[in-house]
């Protein structure tokens, strides 16, 4: 293997040019930026997770219901188009479990049934605008509440593991959060 030991030693004696000091600074900045982004993002999500109000919960529930209704509507449309094909369930139960392989036994359902199963693949909520609508007092309360309005874009994704087909539902939504303001 080693037919050229001298040449290899000569080559090793050549030193590659060193990176400029500016590169170190640039990498450091990128590292810090990356750190800030991840901290800010996690802080925002933890804050949002712990400021749930019944009002906001209702909106979230409505949005989730709308997404499921849209999905079901899509699937029933497909079912009408292909009457000879069976559409598998897209029920909440399947969302929390991996898709089981389709049965090909005595029921007469063939392997192609599994190709119609969609499993949840992701859900994102992007807040693209936050508006502070000032303080307000709830009826009968002397404690002021700050009213914040969030405009978001929610996206839900489902994927069919056997065919690779994916379904994405994306819609804008608005959420209003009331945060109690404590007096100084």
């Amino acid at each position, binding site marked *: 293997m080693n037919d050229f030991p001298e*040449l290899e030693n000569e*080559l090793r004696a050549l030193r590659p040019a060193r*990176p400029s000091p500016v590169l170190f600074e640039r990498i450091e900045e990128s590292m810090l930026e990356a750190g800030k982004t991840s901290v800010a993002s996690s802080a925002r999500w933890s804050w949002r997770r712990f400021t749930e109000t019944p009002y906001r919960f209702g909106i979230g529930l409505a949005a989730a219901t709308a997404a499921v209704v849209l999905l079901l509507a899509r699937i029933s449309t497909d079912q009408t188009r292909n009457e000879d094909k069976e559409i598998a369930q897209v029920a909440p139960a399947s969302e929390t479990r991996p898709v089981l392989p389709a049965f090909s036994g005595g029921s007469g359902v063939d392997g192609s049934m599994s190709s119609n199963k969609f499993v949840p693949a992701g859900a994102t909520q992007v807040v693209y605008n936050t508006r502070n609508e000032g303080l307000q007092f709830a009826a009968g309360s002397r404690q002021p509440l700050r009213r914040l309005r969030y405009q978001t874009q929610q996206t839900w994704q489902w994927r069919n593991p056997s065919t690779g087909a994916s379904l994405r539902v994306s819609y804008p939504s608005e959420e209003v959060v009331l945060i109690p303001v404590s007096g100084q």
Partner: protein
Amino acid sequence: MDNIASHENWKSCFSEIGPGLLLFARQWTRSAADAEDIVQEAFVKFWRRNHRINNRALLYATVRSIALDFIRRDKRRARREATVFADADSTVEPQFEWEDEAKSALAAAVSCLPHDQREVLVLKIWNELTFSEIAGALGISQNTAASRYRYALANLKKSLQPQ
């Protein structure tokens, strides 16, 4: 230097492997500045994903992949630069620090090697990767990596022999 996830040790790690990484990135670029951009992007990406630093094949594969993306992204500019540099090789920035004429000749001979051989040589000599790691980084077999290395050395020896 087991895990590169810690933000404390990236500088020492980069001081050690930076020159080799930069030399590797220079295989696709005509300027040190472009190579530094590639190395920066690859290193930060690698670091943020908390890969282990001893997974060197992955680090170099990341550099290579970003370099190839860079070429595709900037195709027009690369083509223009290639044309310019083909006519004026003397303007290429040095990839090595050399002190004498012999080393200068050796560096020039390395630059003239076919790309696939030079790539393997750079990983083997200045980055100290094993053939197995080189194979992983370049997506080739170990035998191919070893034979490209031998061809590179043979070609260098031939080009350095007095006429």
